[in-house]
């Protein structure tokens, strides 16, 4: 019983970290159909900004978090407006090559500017403690991630399905020409959506840093994990990503408790089985996948 509870608690906490790191990609790759392999680099930038502000500038974590999210969002908007918009209609290979190139560039730049060592975000005393759950303790920071993940998932799902902006976005992705003929400002919609995707990546970089420490190779190291979450969840479905992240997190955690000698085998086995069962992901949006 204790073991089961442990697996669930740690699995949910780990799964939510996976989700928070992947949710930005779920927007850019999933919703916008843009093969964005520089997602990890955006997350890294968010994390580095928060680390710099809390450590060097002495900002409070609660101020540094929105500042880091805003910085990556603005950076995403600028990059989209200047460069990436030209790639939407190019082949997926061009998108892959450009974004992976950008990732390598950002890794080298980070290494040159900040050095190869791990960067830590200074947590406020409130988060830097353990919370007693009765049968065991859990770091307070993990509780924040759990709440933030839920809020992000629900807000994003509501925006996409229930608001005018969501209608515009879906129209702009599925039928850009028709949408534009109907007077939908598709350029603004694309730019804003990409900026939100980048901002969410930054959020993941900051909140996930406790488990995925920030260093120059961050941008590539966890890319496979987030791609798996988005693919298993289903392109364009944020709730799908949430379910995928939580179930994969629980599988990975259970294997650490019960069969750690097998490494990450069960994680990838679960991925393969889920994709074999639903090749378009758990909750794929529409038939256009």
């Amino acid at each position, binding site marked *: 019983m*204790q*073991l089961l509870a*442990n*697996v669930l608690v*740690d699995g949910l*906490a*780990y799964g939510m*970290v996976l989700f928070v790191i992947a949710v930005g990609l779920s927007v850019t790759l999933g919703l916008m159909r843009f093969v964005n392999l520089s997602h990890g680099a955006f997350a890294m930038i968010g994390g580095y900004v928060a680390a710099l502000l809390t450590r060097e500038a002495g900002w409070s974590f609660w101020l540094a978090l929105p500042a880091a999210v805003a910085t990556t969002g603005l950076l995403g908007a600028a990059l989209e407006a200047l460069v990436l918009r030209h790639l939407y209609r190019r082949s997926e290979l061009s998108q892959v090559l450009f974004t992976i190139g950008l990732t390598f560039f950002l890794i080298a730049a980070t*290494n040159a500017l900040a*050095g*190869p*060592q*791990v960067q*830590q975000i200074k947590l406020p005393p409130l988060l830097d403690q*353990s919370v007693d759950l009765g049968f*065991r*303790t*859990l*770091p307070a920071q993990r509780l924040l991630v759990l709440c933030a993940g839920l809020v992000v998932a629900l807000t994003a799902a509501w925006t996409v399905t229930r608001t005018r902006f969501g209608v515009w976005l879906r129209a702009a992705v599925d039928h850009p020409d028709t949408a534009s003929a109907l007077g939908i400002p598709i350029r603004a919609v694309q730019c804003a959506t990409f900026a939100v995707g980048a901002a969410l990546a930054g959020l993941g970089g900051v909140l996930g840093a*406790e*488990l*995925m*420490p920030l*260093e*120059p*190779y961050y941008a590539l190291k*966890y890319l496979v994990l987030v791609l798996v979450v988005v693919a298993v969840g289903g392109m364009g479905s944020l709730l799908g990503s949430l379910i995928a992240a939580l179930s994969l997190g629980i599988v*990975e*955690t259970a294997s*650490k*408790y019960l069969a*750690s*000698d097998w*490494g*990450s085998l069960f994680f990838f086995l679960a991925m393969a089985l889920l994709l074999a069962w639903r090749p378009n992901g758990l909750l794929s949006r529409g038939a256009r996948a």
Partner: protein
Amino acid sequence: MPSAFTRPIAVFAAVFILAFSSAASAQAVKIGIIGPFSGPFAHYGTLFKNGAEAYVASQGGKLAGKEVELIYRDTGGPNPGQTKNLVQELIVKDKVDYLGGFVFTPNAFAVAPLIQQSQTPTVIFNAATSAITDKSEFFLRTSYTLWQVTVPLAQWAAKQNLKKVVTAVTDYGPGIDAETAWKSEFTKQGGTVVESIRMPISTTDFAPFVQRIKASGAQAVYTFLPGGPPNLGFVKAYNENGLAKAGIRFLGTAETDEFDLQKFGDAAIGLTTAFHYSAAHESQANKQFIAALKKRDPNAIANYASVGAWDGMYVIHKMIEATGGQKDGLKAIASARALQWESPRGPVRIDPKTRHIVQNVYLRSVEKAGGQLVNKEVQSFGPQSDYGLDK
């Protein structure tokens, strides 16, 4: 734009410059340093470079009256094939007299036939698998092995009345080495290893493993982790899940290394490790070492890798002295077998049989001194040889 006319001139100039420069450095002793200078392990390269160059500078820029030329070659990471090519080029084309460096065991293994055939003395600054020095009689080592630091720690733990210990190691070569060393010595001393946990190398969330340690009913955990993120993650999980409060002791080796130490924050206070070098070691030699490092680079870090390079250069220095700067691998190695000196880590010597360094291993505890975390040496276990090779 290279036209048909300018190209021959350029080629001629290049040949001329090459010939001239190699003539000018003909007397210099050439030392090839192999390490990762780019990629995720580049900090090791920096540590080697700082340690080696600080040593040469501390000797007035010359070793035994000879000019020395350090030639750096970048292996990136564990990459035996490329390392072999780089070393072959260093031996054949650059005609190096000595080799030094090596972070990763497979890279060191790969060059054994080359140094054996060319009789090139090679000093290992870091790679810590026991069997390396067996592979060629031209290998010397100034770092440590996991057996060397783990055996005295296991003996000490048994004396502290710790009966039940759980091991938690990262699941790769050195981790398995550490687990075997602990198990064999601790059970010999009458202790019990209640569970042996092997953590996948890609682990980022250590909470499940730490919960298993807690549930195992052990009095202490012996751990081995590679430096950087896994190290920080494990110690964080150890604290956040209340293991220290539950009275489960942390026993490690290189985990509180100076490169990562400050990043742990106060969470690290009280962690117990057994290791051969602490930057807080009280001695004149260590003060000189740290001063020389800081003079080269104010941000340089004194840790096991930079001290390995510093002592490695000392050994090369003495070999140059013994051979009068002539290329004579056999004579150089013969002289190195008898070396003993005062290193920044304490008194050391080269074991004539294994060509591995014999050194004091210290029991240390992390403490705060002057706002900085330090590895305070609490007790010396005395000189230790490499127990891995006696097997």
